[in-house]
């Protein structure tokens, strides 16, 4: 069992992630021992990231909210079965991603978009929007909304698995190994899907790419 635990921990990418995983495990142990309130710490810590992943997979804020809540509830119900063989956030992400995949498969024909606003304080996005509107003279807010719609349309044109990979890698910033753990596939598969998804997105978003 110790070997399995060490293997699971070795899959965590960086030392920061290792520390994070250790602290999460301590909180999980407390919850397992009956300290239900300790679970709120985990919710507060991961709700933004989990919501971001689910939102970028569904492009619907209401669905994303429900699915994020469901993922936390499921993890709370099953927390006694969590043995620490992987990082808590990997386990939580897996629950969230699987719930979202199930939801997307069930509602494949029903797709409604409802977008969040682009955070104006984010420097990189501000730079990108400024660069794209530099010569056109268009209103940045209007252009930002248009770009947001195009980005979400391009994401929705990807298959569910490709969308998941690109979301976890490019938007959430996870490593290949972590994505492979979450999606229960090999690292090679992750890389392949990532490459293919990027190719498709590049083709879809060609008018917005400046070289």
């Amino acid at each position, binding site marked *: 069992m110790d070997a399995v635990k060490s293997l699971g921990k070795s899959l965590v990418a960086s030392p920061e992630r290792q520390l994070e995983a250790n602290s999460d495990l301590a909180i999980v142990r407390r919850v397992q021992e009956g300290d239900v309130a300790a679970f709120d710490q985990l919710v507060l810590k991961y709700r*933004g990231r989990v*919501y*971001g992943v689910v939102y970028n997979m569904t492009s619907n804020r209401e669905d994303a909210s429900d699915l994020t809540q469901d993922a936390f*509830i499921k993890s709370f119900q099953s927390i006694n079965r969590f043995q620490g063989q992987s990082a808590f956030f990997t386990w939580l992400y897996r629950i969230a991603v699987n719930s979202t995949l199930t939801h997307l498969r069930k509602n494949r024909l029903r797709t409604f978009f409802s977008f969040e606003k682009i955070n104006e304080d*984010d420097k990189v996005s501000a730079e990108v929007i*400024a660069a794209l509107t530099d010569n056109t003279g268009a209103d940045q807010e209007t252009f930002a909304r248009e770009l947001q719609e195009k980005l979400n349309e391009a994401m929705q044109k990807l298959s569910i698995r490709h969308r998941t990979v690109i979301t976890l890698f490019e938007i959430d910033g996870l490593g290949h190994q972590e994505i492979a753990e979450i999606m229960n596939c090999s690292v090679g598969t992750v890389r392949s899907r990532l490459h293919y998804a990027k190719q498709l997105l590049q083709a879809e978003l060609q008018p*917005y790419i*400046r070289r």
Partner: protein
Amino acid sequence: MNDTPRKTTVTLEDLLRVKRAEQPPVEFWADFERGMRAKQLAAIVEPRPWWAPFIRVGARIARYQLPVGATAILAITLFTLREYQPVNSNPVFESTVTEMGNHVVPMPVASKLDVALVMPAATSPVVAAAEPAPTAAASGSRTVQPVPSAATAVGAVSHVAMVNAELSSARYMADKMADNLAAAQASDSNLDQMLGHSLRTMDNLPPRSEPLAQISVPGESRLYRLLGGSVQSVSVGSGDSALRLNAQAARHLTERRISESDVISRLAVGGNRLTVKF
């Protein structure tokens, strides 16, 4: 936004960073917290269904579905191949034994019916004994060669054994053909006998005659009985009794005519008179 430094190139990663910047407002999390709390309480209060453990067990078994299914298909295939393996590569002759006098002749099934049809039942009983290998079917003058049985063909048959079996089979077939020829000749003689008997029987039949000639003319009494009514009325035409009968008949005829139809006839018979109305 206008104070941000200029960026000349925009890559796909940059565009996806814009996507990353899509974040919910702060007040969203208050609603999220409230909904989360409600769901958490509901999950604690709500009893788990009785079949929940079975789902867990099913999920564990599900990962072995592919190997178990493949093994089952392989086992069924092997079993089927073993069960339906051809018993013998050589043709197996189903033969019948026809006893003709003191001569036992193995005959093919196809010729059995023909022989049975031409042979009289009393004189040549046909013994239909379906024997796959008539090894012991031998009469005093003839020994029938054995045909390799099904048991010897199952499993691995060596090449020499197969050649021997083919030779013996060919010899057996030749014997059978000779026997069939003899049986056919015997049946021909029986057929001749039967045909001769039937021809003789036909000779003893009476000579053929015309059907109308066979009908006898009825006698006079019968003729009179058949034509009694009309003959009677004609024969009693004279005398009182004849007149009385004639009058009765005429009255009866008139009454019947009147009762049957409303048409009044121009002829009327009354007593000795016949009235004709113009």
